[in-house]
């Protein structure tokens, strides 16, 4: 999952980046509203966390421009301005959720998780469920038939992405775009290694290779 964090307060951004990275999200960080308008549209983010008090361009204006340009990425607004009048304005501008400062980091993680599931049509349950697997995002492990299987951080990221996109063909480059932030070197070989690790832990049939197209997760054995 690749997120865009737009927040101009550097210490808060550092904290949020660290927390979100621990949760297995690849995060790009921007501090200026004008940059955010451009980058939010040009990069394939899965979710955007947007602060409203931004230099350059106000957050609401950024959001309005994104929505006007047809950007459908879920946006979570982060703001200290938490009156109901302002919340309604945020919603009208096209926000999907609203978190007022200050907040507990876990609150943000839960909201991000819920919003990602919601945007992929998944119910908000304690665990993420797909193809008979139950993924516990808090503890970063997966359960199958009551048996708990431990995952590395990289495997967890990959599996979560697959489980949010079941039965879809995902190319290597698509996966790389959504699993790594803009500054990480993208090496498709590393991806293959992680896919193989997942297959070893969860069974070969879980991830199917479509030659020339990419991977497909959770396809019912035909």
């Amino acid at each position: 999952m690749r997120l865009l964090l737009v927040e101009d307060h550097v210490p808060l951004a550092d904290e949020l980046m660290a927390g979100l990275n621990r949760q297995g999200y690849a995060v790009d960080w921007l501090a200026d509203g004008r940059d955010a308008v451009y980058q939010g549209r040009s990069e394939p983010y899965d979710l955007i966390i947007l602060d409203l008090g931004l230099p350059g361009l106000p957050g609401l204006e950024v959001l309005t421009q994104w929505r006007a340009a047809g950007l459908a990425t879920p946006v979570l607004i982060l703001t200290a301005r938490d009156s109901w009048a302002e919340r309604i304005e945020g919603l009208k501008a096209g926000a999907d959720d609203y978190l007022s400062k200050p907040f507990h980091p876990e609150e943000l993680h839960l909201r991000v998780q819920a919003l990602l599931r919601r945007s992929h049509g998944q119910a908000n349950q304690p665990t993420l469920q797909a193809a008979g697997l139950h993924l516990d995002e808090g503890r970063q492990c997966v359960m199958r038939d009551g048996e708990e299987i431990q995952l590395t951080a990289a495997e967890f990221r990959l599996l979560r992405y697959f489980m949010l996109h079941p039965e879809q063909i995902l190319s290597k480059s698509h996966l790389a775009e959504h699993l790594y932030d803009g500054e990480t070197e993208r090496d498709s070989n590393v991806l293959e290694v992680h896919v193989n690790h997942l297959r070893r832990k969860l069974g070969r049939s879980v991830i199917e290779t479509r030659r020339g197209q990419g991977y497909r997760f959770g396809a019912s054995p035909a």
Partner: protein
Amino acid sequence: MKSIQRRLSLGLISVMVIVGLVLAQTSLWLFEMGLQRYLESGLRNDSENLLVALVRGPMGVQLDEQRLSPAYQRPFSGHYFRIDFADTHWRSRSLWDQELPQLPQAGLKGNLQLGPEGQQLLVLRSDYKRFGQSISISVAQDYTPVRESFRLMRQIGLVLGLAALLLILLLQRVTVRRALRPLETARNQIAQLQQGQRSQLDTQVPVELEPLVAQINHLLAHTEDSLKRSRNALGNLGHALKTPLAVLLSVASSEQLKDHPQLSKLLREQLEQVQQRLNRELNRARLAGETLPGALFDCDGELPGLLATLNMIHVEHLDLSYRVPPGLQLPWDREDLLELLGNLLDNACKWADAEIVLSVGETPEGFRLVVEDDGPGIPESQRDQVFSRGTRLDEQTDGHGLGLGIVRDIVDVWGGVLLLQESELGGLKVVIDLPRRH
């Protein structure tokens, strides 16, 4: 407060009465003076005729009867004379048995009573020298008829004057009312302002009212502007304080402090207290309260957005609905009302199982807002406790109440009443009665 209309009427009446009386009295007096002077010349004529009629006869000085006016012969005819010599005096026959007193010196005198009919006489005494002796001739004329017509004239004048006064008063009332119509309009507009049906007064007013209306408009704009500015400043302050607070909260629960659980707990508790206090005070400072709203709160326009926002925040599939008479408008500040309803509904959403209903309606005393949910509710014994004086709702750590502090503040500022009841849906029913603005 005295009405301008009444003050103008009183002033006008007193001025008219005083001026009218002085004018009438003066003109009557001048008229009477003129009449007397006219009668005096007639009397002087008569007196000279009498002097001419005095002739030297066989028995000394005698009156030539032929030359006398017949009016001197007829009793109480209204024309009399008396001629005084050194030792004797003659009277005209018309005096009959009455005595015409001699004036102490030559000249004119009015208001002399005479005779059984109470005639008012005007007497002129003139002194002459004739035939070597001094002769004093007094002639008198009855001017009662003149006085009678005078009185009649005065009465007619009085009636006419009164009628004129009434007419003037009536016209003045009409004029004043017409002149004061802009004031009345301004008063109505101020009432509408209070009701929130308009945000500015009309500037199409007479010159005299212009500064007043301009000043009121200026004040209104200023109030709205300063409210906006202070809200903005509070927003900035909140932003400036809450962002570092978010950093601290994040640090307090971070990995680095995992080895010091007590320190982490202490930090978090203290930060939460700061956060709660900050939220509460900032929210309270944002309230417009009694300030006149710039515009009415339009239920049909605002509620769908609010409910959609609540639905977004509470992703569980809650059934939020509202029952509001179409076109209902509430005369309070939009942001305050959104804050009130938002917090009430947010609280209900936290506790409801599936259904939340908001109803807004008009009552004879004002407006009634009701929020009901189908959650667990609050047992009756604890409801009083929740609202007892001194207990702050947001200091309650569990149950209904979190976030309701601001609701209480708003209702207090508006002079409303907040009641907790049991809902037919099974949960809590919060009833807020807000009095109409005056």
